[in-house]
């Protein structure tokens, strides 16, 4: 089966600042792949390149077998900040992706509304982002991302700003949610636990300018739950990754 996304030998600098030295990443269909790396190593930049917002200095981005450098609209991209529009209600924020795809606002609202329950947001349709908690904002942003395309999703630290308890419950919620979806997901995180818990594979990036330092295939069986965090297999992988991070 061809890979959904193939990132090949990408290099990117901003002026004299070498950000990504040489990175190759592949995402298979229906898989969850995480990118783990120190702050400022170019993870978000890589997502900008995959989504077509930035052009790489060198290398290729193959999406569903087609070279997509500089082409936007091919994947759905949840940015590091929630980027909800403060002047739109949660429902209308979720609708943006459908509107961009050409749906009228009425149809968009009907369609988006049916997902509110699944995303734990029902009853809050007419609230403005400022009236919501951090976790709810992230779920709203995730819903907007999902509505744009459930095929390939790039999620940039979706739980980065949340407290530990909320974060843990969001991770469990996301896993439950994904059971019903056929999405292929590329996920950025700082948290080793989060990466192991959610992923089928982890790419470990070096510090800037980034190269892929190691890859880990995570074979912990699914369904996973909160017990996974304390299992022997989980801790074995965690130790390996932490040892590698220590070397830096």
């Amino acid at each position, binding site marked *: 089966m061809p890979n959904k996304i193939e990132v090949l030998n990408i290099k990117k600098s901003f002026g004299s600042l070498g950000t990504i030295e040489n990175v190759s990443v592949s995402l298979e269909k229906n898989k969850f792949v995480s990118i783990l790396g120190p702050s400022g190593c170019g993870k978000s930049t890589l997502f*900008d390149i995959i*989504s*077509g*917002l930035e052009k790489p200095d060198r290398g290729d981005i193959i999406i569903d077998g087609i070279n997509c450098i500089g082409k*936007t*609209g*091919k994947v*759905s*991209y949840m*940015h590091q*900040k929630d*980027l909800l*529009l*403060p*002047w*739109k209600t949660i429902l209308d924020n979720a609708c*943006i*992706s459908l*509107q*961009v*795809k050409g749906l009228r606002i009425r149809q968009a609202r009907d369609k988006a509304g049916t997902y509110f329950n699944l995303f*734990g947001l029902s009853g809050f349709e007419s609230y*403005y982002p*400022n*009236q*919501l*908690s*951090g*976790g*709810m904002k992230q779920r709203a942003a995730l819903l907007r991302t999902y509505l*744009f395309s459930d095929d390939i999703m790039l999620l940039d630290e979706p739980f980065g700003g949340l407290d530990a308890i*909320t974060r843990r*419950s*969001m991770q469990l*919620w996301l896993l439950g949610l994904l059971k019903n979806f056929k999405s292929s997901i590329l996920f950025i995180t700082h948290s080793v636990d989060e990466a192991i818990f959610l992923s089928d594979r982890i790419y470990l990036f070096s510090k800037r300018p980034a190269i892929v330092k190691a890859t880990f295939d995570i074979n912990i069986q699914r369904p996973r739950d909160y017990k996974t965090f304390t299992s022997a297999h989980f801790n074995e992988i965690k130790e390996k990754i932490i040892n590698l991070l220590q070397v830096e």
Partner: protein
Amino acid sequence: MLIAIWEIISRTGSVPSYILPAPSIIIYSLFSNFSLMGRHILVTVYETLVGFIISVFLGIIIAIIMDGLPFVKKVIYPLLITSQTIPIITLAPLFIIWFGYGYLPKIIIVILICFFPISINLLQGLGSVDIELINLLKSMGASKYQIYKIVKLPASLPSLFSGLKIAATYSIMGATIGEWVGGKDGIGVFMLRAKYSFATDKVFGAIIIITVLSICLLKLIEFIERKSMPWVAYEKNDTLGEQI
């Protein structure tokens, strides 16, 4: 308090009433001349509103064009700034010569005064929209039109309204200046006639009318501002408890 002192000073006759009439006299003359003033007020309000509405459209369109096409901005922006250094009052006689004594020259003066703050404020607002929000739409492959409609215009509403408020406070004054220079009716004309006959109470009455009209226009804009930006009311609200 100030008004009370003013009343006493005028009443005791230490200042002649053609220089400073007592407030009570001003109010009295305001009411007794109201039927006569009514027509003048309507004319001024008409000139102001027409000029103001045209300014709003013109200001918004020019701001969007300058924001969307940087090379147009390079040409127009310096011209706009220079145009504002020309005192309007010196142009007014020209407009009278060109366009006669009707409403048109006054409307043009209102436009010249109002459109600048609207345009410049909106332009500044459009220019400072969070680039990441724009990128979000771009990553979805949104068109320029969609980016304006969904992000840029709503994001710059606060700037637009601050421009509108500045314009509103000057608009009535603009029309009045136009009427001073030449016209058959309007509050400015009424003021001139009152001045020639040393009817200082009427001049003061006109000043009050102009002030009240300006405030009304300002309040109207503030009302529309609140209605069109309902989310602002929630900006300081506490967030709800986490519900998972």
